[in-house]
Every structure is written in structure tokens, then in C-alpha cells.
């Protein structure tokens, strides 16, 4: 278990309980049940307290938690017959974006998502979930295929943002993102998107211009990272707490703004403390959202999606 900076006091208590139990195992006849469970209770209370009102900056930290389930975990657990399809037919295959054909409760779909990786090797391989133009172009190709064969598209968003690299820029990062957003808006099939961790700026929009967007309770979705915003507007990147506050990047604020449609609750202490439950909840939500489009024709699906985005911004947050 990796503890976040604000979970330090919790780590201490849980550590103590663990130590006590280890000691009891080594010393036969020693009874620590009472003390240990008292510590457990204290830890549980503290966890509840910590996660009751997470500040926006803490939510960012939870959303980036390395133990949170990532795209690959969801695909493996929720889908059957997943067949990854690779490449943009142009330049390369981007490992920051995974996608392919799969079945969700027997229903064939196309699933696409950002994958961050779970250890040093896979993180480097996946480029920390930061896609290059090839990733967006692969997504465009897969969405196109879904559209031709009338398969719903499911996107899982989890990216710090598009990769700011030399080659990525030379090969048209901006154009690739623009075309991917455009493709989302052209689809005659349902497009359902779930922000499972970080929804980083244009890199997220390129996948999340969907008929329905759901967010996990502690995920974030923003025009810029709090650190980036702080360094531009506060001229001090240490002001990320203030920036996170001002940007209104939490699922709760975005629901009020009408930018997203659903919030999927996370287990107490975040998705990282109940990975299976989180994955199952996301699966149920995707199926429920997809059912809303049963029987709708292609023109309606497209028109509704466009209308939804044209209307956006009509409601603000009362200060």
C-alpha cells in the first residue's frame, strides 16, 4: 500500500497494528486482539475522516495514486474477448493508448483508453499515459471502425495530458487531438466515457467528447494541471492547492456545471483501497449508460451529442 502525503498519520496507526500482529504471531500465547482491533478502529475512523471532505488538491493526489486501477485493469476485469488492435497506419503504435474490440456482457464494443502503467518498466513503456499523435490517430481509426460496424464506443480517460515532446509536436499533436475530438462528434453510435483518474486537458477531451461522461468520485478533469496553473497565474508552482481550488476540477463541481453526467462512488479511502469494487461499479455504470441509447438511431445519437456540447456553459457555480 502506498500512502499519500496526507495519509501519513493513518500509515502510522496501520503500521502499529501490523507490528503488533506480527509480534503476536511470533510469540505464542500473546493476545493482542483487543489492542490491535482498537488500533484498527482508530485507523478506520481516521480514514473516514480524511476522505469525508477531500480538498481538491488531495483529490488530485488520490486521482494520481499509483495503486489506483488503470485502464488495463478495467479492460481485463470487465470485458471478454478483448482483442487489442494496434497502430495508426501512419507512423507507430502508441502504447500510452490501448484499444480494441471487446465484449461487455456479450455485447461487442470498441474500448479505448489511456494506460499509465503500474511499475517503472510499464510506466516508461506507456509513457505515463501521455499520448503522442499516434495514440489519438489510433483512437480515430478505432472509432471509425466502430462507427462502420455499429458498435458502441467506450473510452476510459486517465492521462496527465498529451505528451509535450519534440517528435509529438512535429507530427501534429494539436491536429491529432482536434481530429479525435471531431471524430467523437461525428459518431453515429453511442459514445460513453469514464474519467477513472486524471482527465488532463486536451488529451482527455479528445476521448471524452461523449454522449455521456461519468467520473469516479475522486477523479479530476481540468483544463490545466494545478501545478501548471499555479506557475502561470500565481507565478509560483507551490500554490497548486489554491489553483486546484480555483479550477473546480472535482467530479462534484463538474456535475454541478453540467459538464459530466454521473459520479461513480468509490470505496472508502479511494479506488486504491477497493480495486475490485471500483472496477465492478464502473462496469455497472457503463452498462446502465449504454442502455439509455438502446433503440436510438444514428442521427439522433449524433445530434444529441452535439446539442449537449453546444449548450454547455449555461449553468455556472453559485459562489
Amino acid at each position, binding site marked *: 500500500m502506498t500512502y499519500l502525503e496526507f495519509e501519513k498519520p493513518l500509515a502510522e496507526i496501520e503500521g502499529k497494528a501490523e507490528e503488533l500482529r506480527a509480534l503476536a504471531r511470533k510469540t505464542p500465547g500473546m493476545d493482542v486482539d483487543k489492542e490491535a482491533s482498537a488500533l484498527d478502529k482508530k485507523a478506520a475512523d481516521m480514514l473516514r475522516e480524511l476522505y469525508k471532505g477531500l480538498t481538491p488538491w488531495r483529490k488530485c493526489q488520490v486521482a494520481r495514486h499509483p495503486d489506483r486501477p488503470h485502464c488495463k485493469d478495467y479492460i481485463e476485469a470487465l470485458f471478454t474477448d478483448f482483442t487489442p488492435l494496434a497502430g495508426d497506419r501512419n507512423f507507430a503504435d502508441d502504447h500510452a493508448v490501448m484499444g480494441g474490440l471487446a465484449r461487455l456482457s456479450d455485447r461487442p464494443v470498441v474500448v479505448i483508453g489511456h494506460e499509465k502503467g503500474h511499475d517503472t518498466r510499464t510506466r516508461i513503456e506507456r509513457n505515463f499515459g501521455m499520448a503522442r499523435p499516434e495514440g489519438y490517430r489510433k483512437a480515430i481509426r478505432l472509432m471509425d471502425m466502430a462507427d462502420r460496424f455499429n458498435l458502441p464506443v467506450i473510452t476510459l480517460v486517465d492521462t496527465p495530458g498529451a*505528451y509535450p515532446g519534440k517528435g509529438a509536436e512535429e507530427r501534429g499533436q494539436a491536429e491529432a487531438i482536434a481530429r479525435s475530438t471531431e471524430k467523437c462528434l461525428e459518431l453515429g453510435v453511442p459514445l460513453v466515457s469514464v474519467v477513472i483518474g486524471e482527465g488532463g486537458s486536451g488529451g482527455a477531451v479528445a476521448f471524452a467528447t461523449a454522449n455521456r461522461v461519468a467520473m469516479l468520485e475522486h477523479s479530476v478533469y481540468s483544463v*490545466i494541471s494545478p501545478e501548471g496553473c499555479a506557475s502561470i497565474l500565481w507565478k509560483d508552482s507551490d500554490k497548486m492547492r489554491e489553483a486546484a481550488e480555483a479550477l473546480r476540477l472535482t467530479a462534484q463541481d463538474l456535475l454541478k456545471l453540467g459538464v459530466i453526467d454521473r459520479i461513480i462512488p468509490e470505496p472508502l479511502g479511494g479506488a486504491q483501497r477497493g480495486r475490485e469494487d471500483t472496477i465492478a461499479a464502473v462496469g455497472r455504470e457503463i452498462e446502465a449508460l449504454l442502455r439509455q441509447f438502446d433503440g436510438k438511431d444514428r442521427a439522433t445519437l449524433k445530434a444529441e451529442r452535439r446539442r449537449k456540447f453546444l449548450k454547455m456553459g449555461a449553468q455556472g457555480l453559485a459562489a
Partner: protein
Amino acid sequence: MNWISNYVRPKINSLFSRREMPENLWTKCPECGTMLFHRELSDNLNVCTSCDHHLPISPRDRFATFFDGGIYTEVPVPEPLADPLAFRDQKKYPDRLRSAQKATAEKEAMLVAEGEIGRTPIVAACQDFGFMAGSMGMYVGNAIIAAAERAVERRRPLVLFSAAGGARMQEGILSLMQMPRTTVAVQMLREAGLPYIVVLTHPTTGGVTASYAMLGDVQIAEPNALICFAGPRVIEQTIREKLPEGFQRAEYLLDHGMLDRVTHRQKLREEIIIILRMLLRMPPPVAADLPAPKPVHHEPVAPASAETTPEAPAPAEAAPEAPQTPEPK
């Protein structure tokens, strides 16, 4: 100090300073350092007369020489919700907006107009880098949608001049949502079979590049314009190496297949007329048919008084280093 410098010099000084002499009569070219007289500069469409560097130009100045005879009518833009997030950094967002309005005498960062160029009816939209770095918020989104709707309604092509540091952070996620919104606007034009020409001007970065500014039927850029998603400084920090000369400039993008053309500001109008008339299957423009546009000289907008010096623009998601602060006009 003698009596002459105490007495005569102040007299001489006051003689000059009493006349209305705003200090912005001269502009220094940021590229070659030449001092350019304002008349000479505006006659040359704000292009340096000695090194051809393209300085920023306000939407109104651009339209005055772009439309036939400088005649155009503004297309109204629906007013968005003011300050939807109640955003506050070191300053309140409404205060930042107000000082940008004072400094530019414009309401927001985009101007939409209709008129004719070379007797070809068009709708044009122009982004104002001088207004909070041209950043794209809900107003800019509404402006592009209004421009597309007007173009579809009147069956006219749309010419869009982009210039922006990126999305307007003060509108948070709603500025990000302008990427899909403006993309819908482009799709309206496409479905109506109307040409959409984008002129990318210095600088066009971030979410603006990654939406409507890259979706034109024809993509033209002004020389040496910075055009990118992530700005050079962000990239240098990421890859920890120096970027090549001219990286992310218009000519570099042209070489990498990202643009159709790089065109000097003086030739833009003529080129757009020729392209549009072909795309619209209209007869070629006849030179004699085209009244030479009479440059309309606006008196320079009163310079911002000392206490309202236009603040440095605070733009941009991905490209915070949006180049130089715009010169107060």
C-alpha cells in the same frame, strides 16, 4: 547646472511635451530593433518595413484593410455567463477582464464580422491576442459558433484568424469545453458545404490549435508565427534539450506537412480571394473589379493611462510562455 539648463531646457521640453504626443507613436520592432513610425507601420499592416517581421494586429485594424473599402458589419455574439466559476487567483477574474477591456477598448478576445473581400461575400472572425492573450473562453466559443451559424444562414464561407495563448484558465473546464463546441461549429460549415479557411497568426497555441484552428479546409499561416500545442519551454523542460532553430514556427510546420501555405500579410487578402472564389466555383476575380481597399485610419486608441497599464496576458494551458506581451496600441 547653469542658468541655461535650468531655464531654457525646461522651456524647450514643455514646448514639445505640451503638444499631444502619445509615446506610442513609435514602435520598436522586436525582431530587428528598428524604430517604426505608427503611420508607416499601420500602412504596412503592422509588418516591420525593414525585416518583414509580422507584429500583432488588432482585429479592427485587420478588418479595416481586409474587407473591401474597409467596410464590414459586426456579427453579434451571444453574451456568456459572466465568471461561471467565481475564479480568483491573485486577482479576481472580472477585474482581469475589466482591465483587458480598458486596455484594448474591446469587449472580448474575438471579433466577428461580415462583408465582402474582392466582391466575395464572407464571414470573418479574428482573435485578439491583445485581449488576455486571445485566450479561448466561453465568449470566444460563442463567437465562433455565431460566425459559423451566420455563414451557414447566408451561405458564405468563413475566414478565421487565430491568435491565442490557449484556453482561458479562469473559466476552468468550461474553457476546455470550447474545444468540442468550436469543433461542432466547424462541422456545421462542412455539412453546409461552405469553405472554412484558417489563418494562423503569431502565436496560436494550446487548446486553440488543438481544435478549430487546425480544422480548416485550407490552413494558411503568417510567416514565423509560433504554432504549437505544447509551448517550446514546456518541451525543453520535458526532454531536457535545446530545440532546433525555428521549431514550431510556420515555416517548420509547412515543412512537416502541417500547413498548406505560409503567406505574407500583404498578400493574404488577395490569396484568400483567389482560393475562395475557386472553392465557391465563382468566376476569377478581375483586378479592375476590385476597388483598392482604402485604409481606414483609426486614431490610435488612447493609451492606457499609467494606472491601467495592460497587465501581462495570463493565458494558456499547454503553452504558458506565449511570447511577448502585446505592445499597447
